[in-house]
């Protein structure tokens, strides 16, 4: 064991960037990929139960290995390039979607200041990375040289840019209360003697709802999956993709969903803090299990919404974003400023 630690410290002191890169590859990436596989299985199970079906149950115990079987099938399939497609961009598009989605994980903490990069502008970095993911979709739509793909890409671009504004404003109100851009500091600012009542979701209740709904819209999930819209434009931006590039798009989408499910607890629900007061002993102690439990709730809420709601129409999505969410967030940023100024909410108290 000591050899390993010595070797790690040697690498970290002599090649810090390389160690960081390999560490990033090993720590968030592999677990995220496995989590995505489990999440897809869980989605099919949950939606199966909601439809009074069994869901996948043949491969592995409880059908757990179903996703791996699907992935291997996808990876072994032929990649078809559409005629007159822009081949270079066609291949680049899935990667352009995937890389920012995984880069965002570098600043996500799982405990107080336990993150690969404890950057003091962490939240901004996260917002910047997630806003870059839309390029993958737009380029995929354009490079495919297909009407349906193009329509999906256009819808997605407009939708993501619109909802980013509401999302940004809801983050601004969190920043006002927390007084920091560092994700660990934001969570620590929600600590207090009253447990769950000290978290930001109470003073920022509308923002909490808007952030999660905008998160769903940003990841192009039902009921906001206009970019795919099977009943209207076949499969939207990835209609021409098959095999491995399609698997990459799939992976990106689910990784982004898990990321949003992590961000909601971190920003509004006290991250790794316990919902019970600290004075209650072991049940009030903070820990990563609280964060993962909260993440699981939101990840499942995604599936619940998917199985429950019909798809929004495109103009209704735009109306919701611009005429409902943005005015509410603008007003609530002011309210949050008042809360901070008059000391109604004190960070870390």
């Amino acid at each position: 064991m000591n050899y390993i630690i010595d070797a790690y410290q040697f690498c970290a002191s002599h090649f810090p960037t390389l160690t960081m890169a390999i560490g990033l590859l090993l720590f968030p990436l592999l677990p995220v990929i496995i989590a995505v596989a489990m999440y897809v299985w869980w989605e099919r199970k949950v939606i199966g139960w909601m439809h009074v079906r069994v869901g996948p149950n043949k491969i592995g115990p409880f059908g757990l290995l179903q996703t791996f079987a699907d992935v291997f099938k996808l990876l072994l399939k032929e990649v078809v390039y559409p005629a007159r497609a822009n081949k270079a961009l066609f291949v680049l598009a899935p990667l352009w979607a995937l890389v920012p989605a995984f880069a965002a994980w570098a600043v996500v903490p799982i405990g107080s200041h336990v993150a690969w990069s404890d950057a003091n502008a962490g939240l901004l970095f996260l917002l910047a990375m997630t806003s870059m993911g839309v390029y993958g979709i737009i380029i995929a739509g354009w490079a495919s040289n297909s009407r349906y793909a193009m329509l999906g890409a256009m819808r997605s671009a407009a939708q993501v840019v619109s909802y980013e504004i509401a999302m940004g404003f809801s983050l601004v109100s969190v920043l006002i209360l927390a007084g920091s851009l560092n994700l660990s500091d934001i969570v620590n600012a929600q600590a207090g003697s009253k447990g769950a009542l000290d978290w930001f979701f109470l003073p920022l209740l509308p923002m909490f709802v808007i952030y999660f709904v905008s998160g769903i819209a940003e990841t192009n999930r039902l009921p906001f999956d206009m970019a795919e819209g099977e009943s209207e434009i076949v499969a939207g931006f990835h209609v021409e993709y098959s095999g491995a590039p399609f698997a990459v798009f799939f992976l990106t989408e689910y990784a982004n969903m898990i990321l949003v499910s992590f961000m909601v607890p971190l920003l509004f629900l006290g991250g790794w803090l316990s919902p019970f007061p600290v004075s209650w002993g072991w049940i009030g102690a903070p820990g990563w299990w609280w964060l993962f439990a909260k993440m699981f709730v939101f990840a499942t809420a995604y599936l619940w919404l998917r199985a429950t709601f019909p798809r929004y129409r495109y103009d209704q999505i735009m109306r919701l974003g611009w005429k409902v969410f943005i005015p509410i967030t603008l007003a609530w940023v002011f309210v949050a400023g008042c809360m901070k100024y008059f000391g109604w909410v004190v960070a870390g108290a």
Partner: protein
Amino acid sequence: MTFPLISFYVFAAITTLAALAVITVRSPVHAALCLVLTFFSAACTWLLADAEFLAIVLVLVYVGAVMVLFLFVVMMLDVDIDPLREGFIKALPVGLLVAVVMLVEMLTLIGVRALQLPAPGDPALAAGMSNTQWLAMALFSQYLLPFEIAALILTVAIVAAIPLTLRRRQGVRMQDPARQVRVQPGERLRIVKMVAEKPAPQPETSSP
């Protein structure tokens, strides 16, 4: 050569090459994507200079929002590039002149900066806070009025841009999604209570 220096040269080279590609590639979509790369690598060089707030905001605003809309427009319009290229040689002398003037201006500026030696130290480091925090402090206390005026001008510009593009066309079947969302079942559906009717018993016909 330290690693940050090597990375600076790499990012600077990518920035320059991508900026060159913006004006030389044939397809407008490729040009827009090269501009994205230019912004991104410029942000990387700023990051190396410890200006993390500006770097991330550059990515967030220009790469994440402005260029998305740019790309959106370029893809929708499907610009025919050939007529645009026809005047290239004719406009070249003017373009070169502007470029030379800009270069001279930049060199003068750098020369003036170099004369005020030693270079002013990092104010954020001197104040003992992070770059982001220092910038926020400076913007919202020392430079509050210019900042608010800039914000106001931008807002006015946005409001002015909307009336320029907004036109009500006659005879278009426009839907009002707000009205459609607010609709109640009572306005569209009437539930009628009716007594269940039993079919009258058929008179038995004697088969022949």
